């Protein structure tokens, strides 16, 4: 007798194999989206620092997950419904939660490379930008500027 755990493994295998033609493309799209978000927004918005840069770096994996959860997975599901394969799968003697678990596993595996890549690129970019920028703590401002700290801030002095 096949247990629910075995059925989970078999269904995950079924779904992964079924998506095997499309999976490489999905992973590449996810990766490109993640890298594009981190680098692209930097180009659009200029050099971001501190909190804003952190938001951008962590926002990229979030966008990756949103695209998978709200665009790709529903699209695949509606396609399966249109083809009739989703309905046929539901005639198998498998608990509904096992279907859900198998689908979640497959989509997590699809999202994983993009998410990891986004975090990696975010960290890399933050390091690069912090190296190329002069350290604030090392800057020695003249005495007059210390008194008029607003007008002599690094951002206003650069402009």
């Amino acid at each position, binding site marked *: 007798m*096949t247990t629910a755990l075995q059925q989970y493994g078999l269904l995950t295998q*079924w779904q992964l194999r*079924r998506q095997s*033609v499309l999976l490489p493309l999905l992973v590449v799209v996810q990766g490109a989206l993640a890298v594009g978000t981190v680098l692209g927004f930097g180009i659009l918005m200029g050099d971001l620092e501190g909190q804003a840069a952190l938001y951008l770096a962590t926002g990229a994996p979030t966008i990756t997950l949103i695209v998978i959860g709200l665009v790709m997975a529903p699209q695949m599901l509606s396609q399966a419904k249109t083809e009739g*394969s989703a309905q046929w799968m539901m*005639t*198998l003697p498998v608990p509904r939660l096992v279907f859900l678990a198998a689908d979640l596993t497959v989509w997590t595996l699809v999202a994983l490379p993009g998410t990891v890549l986004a975090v990696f690129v975010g960290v890399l970019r933050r390091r690069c930008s912090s190296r190329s920028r002069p350290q604030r703590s090392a800057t020695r401002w003249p005495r007059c500027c210390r008194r008029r700290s607003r007008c002599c801030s690094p951002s206003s002095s650069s402009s």
Partner: protein
Amino acid sequence: MTAGPALDVADVTKTFGGRPPLRANDGISLTVAEGAVVGLLGHNGAGKSTLVNQVAGLLRPDSGSLRVVGHDAVAHPERARREISVQAQANVPITGLTPRTAIELVGRVRGGARRDVARRTTALIESLDLGQWASTPAHKVSGGVARLTAFAMTAVVPGRLVILDEPTNDVDPVRRRLLWTQIKALADDGAGVLLVTHNVREAEHAVDDLVVLDRGRVIAHGTVAELTHPLRSTLQLDVEVSPGRSLAWPSCATASSRDGLRARAAVPAGRAAEAVAWAQDAVDRGDLDRYSVTPASLEDVYVDLVGAASENHASETHASETHAAEAHVSAANPTTSTATTTSTTTSEGSVR
């Protein structure tokens, strides 16, 4: 609990919302015994797939009961699903898999042991002559092979009730015979088989019982012999007229259809010899290219049944419309309304 027949459907009704609401199943009752093949015939939209979806627990009936091997399929669809295996009407896409992998995976999901499933898969592939494509990626196989693969996915670990929805679609004539043999083998092994099909001619030789649906109602049921009984005393004379020649039927034949050079007539069984003599003469004269005399088939009975039901439905609709129109008038004249109600009731009675 005593297990009942493989499938017991009693007075099932299902209506889909919309304007106007569509009554897809209207009081359907049928039984599929274990070891029997029951054909479910009906034209498009007759309610066959709706019934199948209810048996599989994908839809809930509005009323009536569905029992699969004694399990209440409405209250406990998950128990019913353990007892059934379904071949869907549409091919299940198995892109990314080979036919062999797909069959084996489904067999194991259905609870088969790895070795048994592998053995059974090989046997099915050989029986259906699929060996050439067994390890070919699914996107490279033809529609017929995909259809046979879908059947094998259903039969690899069959439930006690096997539901096959149009299993022979797209399958070539040679493999169709192999497929029918496997369908009969499923029943011989003890499964009840519910066979949904349009292919009346083929079903005639494979089914034990038949249920004919029309607009959600059972309009006939019984064995092939019982259903063809009314036409047993009639033979069909089919002829192919030679190009440029005209056709004049003999007095013993009653013309029933004409399609280009092909024509058909009904002949009383007692005057078959007379009809054959006439047809042979016509062939000798060059008026006919060829002819055949056959007993009335199930297809003839089916066409008669569905045709009669359609005419009755049309008259019923007409009567209802008349009733609606006259009911409007009846506000001023109550006598008219009573007369029309009587006519509608008569019409419904004749359909059933």
